[in-house]
């Protein structure tokens, strides 16, 4: 790598603002947009859901996205370093986000592997029409019950082999770096994903019964708006959909050039993400309308989300529709591409954190991070109990990882460190969309209230009934134990000292940035080449 020699001094950067925007969209548009949004919207009042959804986007999603951008761009570091530069004691938040990404990356990869196999299966209808459910659980996953077998070590080759391929592909992208790897992958995959999905939607709209599906999806149920749970699900969905608060947007924003329109870029990312969700809603419900008609039932009887929608309902549609194979290849191919662009953003949080901490080169850090993750991923998710582990880890890390760290982060930054005014000023320096006290109010007051409500209701739900009916020891290890150990490990990691080679101590790039922007020097970086007579801005 050409950058290897300059690695310790010069921070990597995206080639241009547009590459950053595409990469941020690539991160935000993931599996959730395709398989989660349509059902959440349908359940939450159909067409009427648009009101809480837009409300959540404008009052929580976009403000929190700006919050992440401001932290990453102002403090120019991976999550732990950015939070450390903000305040020494905030570093734990950064490591917590890194560890959340560790957990997510190991199971996210396996869903991409399944989707890749299903792209292939779709072309030949491997599952055999009518056998979609059994094929997925019995033939493909060879699912075993954790209550009977414990955590299995029995290798399932048709999952394990594609999983290795997925890991090899993302490791190559990560090794190539921010500009040549992540940037270029997004420049290729995102336009491809959009075109594929648009073709899929058009084809679905021509299926018989498609309009019944759209009718079910868009018919408003205004009474749903009186239900607080619908509003909570809108905020929860926007929050997960935009990939805010787990380090990704902080890390990506740290690779932006110094003079960048942060809020203008953020608005494009947020609306592109939502635009993709609307498109997915139309495509998925048009297909479900066809499925309902083919089975002679109502759309309500076939609507589902997540793994059930992707790996059972869609294969059924593929079997029954004329030209079904094309629909299947486009749908599962879209899942693979959307998943890969999100997975590399999750991995980048971890790689960037260790690069900053250790001052190592790109390739060395990437291999040290990705190879063990790939091994853990293989060990837990290429076996017969993969589905149970994945389901549990996902549910717990979402509720008590991402949501918890977001809640703590907004409280710490807004109420303990009082950094919102400084972040607001940083956003306004070069941004086309100015933010003011309303933004501070939304991030400092509304976000903690909403996140707090969501967190407490998740806590009550998961304490009162064992999640998914899994045995207590299993939830103790892969659910509660996992999320608690993330916090403990984050505290331990933030206690480790940063060496002289790390970017906390030696970062010429950051010193130049501080001087150029007239910010106060960071106490930890070495030589501060700021001419003393230069006037410094009040913002820290």
């Amino acid at each position, binding site marked *: 790598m050409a950058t290897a020699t300059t690695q310790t001094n010069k921070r990597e950067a995206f080639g241009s603002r547009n590459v950053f925007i595409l990469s941020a969209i690539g991160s935000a548009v993931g599996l959730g947009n395709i398989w989660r949004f349509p059902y959440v919207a349908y359940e939450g009042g159909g067409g009427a859901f648009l009101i809480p959804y837009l409300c959540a986007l404008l009052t929580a999603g976009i403000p929190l996205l700006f919050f992440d951008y401001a932290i990453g761009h102002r403090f120019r570091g991976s999550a732990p370093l950015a939070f450390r530069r903000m305040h020494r004691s905030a570093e734990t938040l950064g490591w917590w986000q890194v560890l959340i990404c560790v957990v997510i990356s190991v199971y996210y990869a396996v869903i991409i592997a399944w989707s890749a196999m299903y792209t292939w299966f779709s072309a030949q209808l491997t599952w055999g029409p009518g056998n979609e459910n059994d094929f997925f659980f019995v033939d493909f996953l060879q699912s075993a019950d954790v209550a009977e077998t414990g955590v299995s070590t029995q290798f399932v080759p048709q999952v394990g082999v594609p999983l290795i391929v997925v890991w090899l592909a993302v490791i190559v992208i990560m090794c190539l770096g921010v500009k040549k790897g992540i940037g270029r992958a997004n420049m290729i995959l995102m336009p491809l994903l959009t075109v594929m999905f648009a073709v899929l939607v058009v084809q679905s709209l021509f299926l018989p019964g498609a*309009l019944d599906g759209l009718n079910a999806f868009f018919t408003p149920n205004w009474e749903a708006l009186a239900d607080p749970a619908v509003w909570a699900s809108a905020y929860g969905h926007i929050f997960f959909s935009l990939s805010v608060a787990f380090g990704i947007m902080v890390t990506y924003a740290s690779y932006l050039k110094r003079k960048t329109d942060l809020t*203008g870029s953020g608005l*494009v990312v*947020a609306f592109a993400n939502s*635009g993709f969700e609307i498109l997915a809603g139309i495509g998925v419900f048009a297909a479900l309308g066809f499925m309902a008609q083919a089975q002679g039932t109502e759309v309500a009887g076939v609507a589902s989300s997540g793994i059930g929608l992707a790996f059972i309902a869609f294969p059924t549609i593929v079997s029954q529709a004329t030209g079904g194979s094309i629909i299947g290849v486009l749908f599962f191919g879209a899942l693979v591409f959307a998943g890969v662009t999100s997975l590399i953003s999750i991995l980048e949080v971890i790689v960037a954190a260790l690069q900053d901490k250790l001052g190592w080169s790109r390739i060395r850090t990437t291999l040290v991070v990705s190879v063990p993750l790939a091994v853990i991923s293989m060990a837990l998710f290429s076996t017969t109990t993969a589905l149970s582990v994945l389901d549990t880890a996902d549910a717990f890390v979402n509720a008590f990882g991402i949501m918890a760290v977001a809640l703590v982060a907004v409280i710490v930054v807004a109420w303990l460190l009082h950094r919102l005014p400084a972040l607001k000023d940083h956003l306004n320096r070069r941004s086309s969309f100015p933010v003011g006290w309303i933004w501070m109010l939304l991030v400092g007051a509304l976000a903690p209230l909403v996140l707090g409500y969501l967190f407490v209701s998740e806590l009550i739900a998961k304490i009162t009934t064992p999640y998914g009916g899994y045995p207590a020891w299993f939830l103790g290890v892969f659910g509660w134990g996992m999320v608690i150990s993330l916090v403990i490990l984050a505290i331990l990691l933030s206690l480790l000292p940063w060496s002289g080679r790390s970017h906390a101590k030696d970062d010429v790039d950051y010193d130049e940035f501080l001087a150029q922007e007239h910010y106060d020097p960071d106490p930890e970086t070495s030589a501060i080449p700021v001419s003393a007579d230069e006037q410094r801005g009040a913002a820290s």
Partner: protein
Amino acid sequence: MTGTAIVMMIVAMVTVWGGLIAAIVNLARHPEVAETEPEAPPVEL
């Protein structure tokens, strides 16, 4: 499709896709500043 469903579909498309177009237009009107160039003087709005 019923009338209300069609209206809600159009409203959803206009708000979200319209918002995306507005955001892209806004960004295009504020081109990227080159790292090495001096900043443009502030424009009166």
